[in-house]
């Protein structure tokens, strides 16, 4: 028999970026909030020994334990989905702060085009431009409407940056100045200007200078130690939920965090949630936490999985295209990149920060004419210097042996003579790309795993090639002696790390039927359930997702407070 606890105002499932932000905003306004996090507690003191590439990058110290829970994957409906038995394509967060602890901090805003992609594409190119089966949609919110929430997120996190000359309008400058410019970034700036492109410093959550945010949280500046991606920050310089929003929520005395609490079901009756059922994984005890409002912030996969397992919302049926939960799964087309080898110059490649870089948006969104192109959208192109750690970074020019004397010689030679330029290619939604429950494979509790059905399409192949060519032009202009770049994208595969930018499954929209939530992240089918995260993106933009996830979380928090007062659907 499950133990039932006293009711709380709000229960939050998963305390990463989205959960942390909402906890902070709601508790500041006086609501009682319980945060259930399946993983462990985290704090800055954990990171004494953090500069350990083997432990954190190769053995995935901070990620979800796949022996307990993973996903299954198939390229299409005609083959059997099999479990991702080892890490590869993306890395799942676990523990207080979620992936927000071991992210890089590249914190972009999406373009106005992204939010109105279907209507703006149709308007400019006609509706035949959107190929059969591509299910891109408008978000039901515009960039201008979301702008104040981006601003809030950036101020909370202390984002360092300068105005993007091709971005949407800003109400305020970035709260802190851009990060420092390294010699290679300088070269990128000069080369792109020569090519009549518009470089700007990558917006960074690494913190260019000491900063105190509007909540009074003070953090120290980044030391460029070169260990961000897959690592926690030993300085607290990188904005993560544990050093920003969670302490603010704790301070109110109204936030109860329960770690080691794995939520298995959202309980509901008559179109309203009544609470959640979770397992205390240290004792195995089954516990019911009743609540007036349930907030689901357990990252894309578990957001979708919890709704499907709880039979909340209408599951997506790829045959008919009806239903919404699990629809519009998309990703990021990240392989369109170029590597440059410099005989005459060495760089401090070992130094850096997760979001130390310089970007252009000339080939992103609809910032360039697609009339004669066989794809839509594009992606941000950037040169970044994130710290080239030696196990994972051994670039050699194409044609070099992969091991032995020649490999050793060249990999040592080029270790500090290589630069790379990469793109965050956008990813469109298709009718046959979706998430549902796997019929065969189970997690440690016996619940079905999430099943991904996804592959790259012609759209992605064309886009990746186009972006790789642009990257290579810039690299040549920068004076590389030799440039290698992607020629063929190939099929999507689960083994190589690409990005943890999974999107969709609980998408946002202007009306029920084609979307699962409204623009406050409130479920159309259960008005006291808010599902927040990149799961709400109808398709993915040409940027890293978290700036937008943060903005949506601030808006959802505002919606929850409104709902608390008035009840009912907010839109």
């Amino acid at each position, binding site marked *: 028999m499950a133990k039932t606890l006293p009711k709380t105002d709000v229960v939050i499932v998963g305390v990463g970026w989205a959960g942390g932000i909402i906890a902070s905003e709601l508790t500041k306004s006086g609501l009682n909030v319980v945060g259930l996090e399946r993983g462990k507690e985290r704090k800055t003191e954990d990171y004494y020994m953090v500069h350990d590439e083997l432990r954190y990058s190769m053995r995935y110290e901070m990620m979800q334990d796949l022996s307990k829970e993973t996903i299954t994957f198939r*390229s299409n409906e005609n083959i059997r989905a099999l479990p991702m038995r080892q890490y590869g394509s993306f890395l799942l967060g676990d523990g207080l702060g979620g992936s927000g602890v071991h992210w890089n901090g590249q914190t972009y805003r999406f373009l106005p085009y992204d939010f109105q992609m279907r209507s703006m594409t149709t308007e400019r190119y006609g509706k035949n431009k959107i190929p059969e089966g591509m299910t891109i949609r408008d978000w039901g919110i515009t960039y201008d409407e979301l702008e104040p929430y981006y601003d809030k997120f950036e101020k909370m996190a202390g984002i360092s940056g300068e105005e993007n000359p091709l971005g949407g309008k800003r109400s305020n400058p970035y709260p802190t100045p851009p990060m420092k410019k390294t010699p290679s970034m300088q070269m990128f700036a000069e080369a792109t200007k020569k090519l009549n492109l518009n470089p700007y410093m990558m917006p960074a959550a690494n913190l260019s200078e000491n900063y105190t945010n509007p909540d009074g949280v003070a953090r120290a500046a980044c030391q460029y130690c070169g260990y961000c991606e897959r690592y926690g920050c*030993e300085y607290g310089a990188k904005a993560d939920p544990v050093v920003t929003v969670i302490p603010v929520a704790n301070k109110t005395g109204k936030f109860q965090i329960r770690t080691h609490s794995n939520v298995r079901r959202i309980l509901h009756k008559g179109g309203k949630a009544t609470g959640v059922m979770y397992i205390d994984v240290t004792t195995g005890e089954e516990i019911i936490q009743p609540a007036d409002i349930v907030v689901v912030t357990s990252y894309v996969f578990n957001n979708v999985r919890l709704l499907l397992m709880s039979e909340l919302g209408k599951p997506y049926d790829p045959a008919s295209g009806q239903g919404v939960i699990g629809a519009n799964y998309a990703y990021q087309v990240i392989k369109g990149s170029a590597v440059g080898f410099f005989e005459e110059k060495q760089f401090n490649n070992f130094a850096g920060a997760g979001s130390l870089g310089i970007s252009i948006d000339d080939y992103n969104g609809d910032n360039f004419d697609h009339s004669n192109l066989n794809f839509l959208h594009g992606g941000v192109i950037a040169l970044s210097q994130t710290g080239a750690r030696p196990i994972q970074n051994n670039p050699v020019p194409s044609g070099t042996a992969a091991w032995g004397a020649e*490999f050793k010689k060249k990999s040592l030679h080029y270790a500090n003579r290589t630069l790379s330029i990469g793109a965050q290619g956008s990813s469109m939604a298709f009718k046959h790309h979706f998430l549902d429950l796997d019929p065969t494979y189970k997690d440690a509790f016996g619940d079905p795993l999430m099943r991904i059905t996804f592959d790259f399409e012609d759209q992605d192949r064309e886009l990746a090639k186009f972006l790789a060519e642009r990257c290579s032009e810039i690299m040549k202009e920068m004076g590389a002696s030799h440039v290698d770049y992607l020629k063929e994208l190939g099929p999507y595969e689960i083994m190589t790390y690409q990005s943890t930018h999974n999107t969709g499954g609980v998408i946002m929209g202007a009306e029920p039927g084609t979307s699962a939530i409204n623009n406050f992240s409130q479920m159309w089918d259960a008005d006291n359930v808010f599902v927040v995260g990149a799961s709400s993106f109808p398709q993915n933009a040409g940027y890293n997702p978290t700036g937008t996830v943060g903005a949506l979380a601030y808006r959802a928090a505002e919606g929850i407070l409104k709902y608390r007062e008035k009840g009912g659907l907010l839109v």
Partner: protein
Amino acid sequence: MERNSSRDTTALEEPKDQASLEDSSSGPDSGQVHDSSRRKFLVNSGYVLGTLAVGGVISSLFGCAKDGEDNADSSAPADDNKEAAAPNYNRALMYFTQAQFRIVEAATERIFPEDESGPGAKKLGVAFFIDHQLAGDWGFNGRDYMNPPFFAGEKEQGYQGRLKRRELFDIGLRELDNYSQTTHGKGFAELEPDQQDAALKAFETEEVKLTTISAGSFFKMLRSATLEGVYSDPLYGGNLNMEGWRMRNYPGSQMSYLNIIEKDFTKIEPSSLQAHLASH
């Protein structure tokens, strides 16, 4: 330019003007927000500047960096040709048999051979590294999803076998030796270097067909484990004396690159995690 940033005085002074999570005047993140253990941690580390304690773990790290480094020097593992040094007790086997160990030592040396730029896998201790890794979580696939049912999948779906890494090594090494016996009448470790290269190549290209495992995947695993042994922190048993890092001018673990980040290439003497261990 030769420079050791962890001893650099500007880096040591840097924290002084940094704001702090513990600054009692700075709102929600002060006082009771952070529990007493954090306070104790800062006090223990002896690093409090006036009323302002330094945020993050940086405080005690800067406080002890020097100690740590001295410590690292005196306990540095023995190199083959240094007489006075203490023995390196890490160099014994946790998993491999001696025969397996010799094959791994020979094979990894061909993957990352000694040359004029410095030591190869053998001197760096890569075979010890792999042995130690197979003895733990990684060897048992402790954090991988190993539940049935098992089906042969598409290439894009990744590893779908039921064998653990230690079992893959057992089989792969035995087959490498079998192949050497068949082609040259000698064990792999006894072959000439170019014969060893040819045998490894035959595995890499799957010219050798094995029934239980894929020769190519085994080679791939051996290659990536070799690079891990060359470049992981010396605490794991490879990268002896940080020579792997030194060969490619990788400075290992440094607390700050603030002073060189805007500059051209700067050579920095490497430092390992041992330098981060607070003295007790």
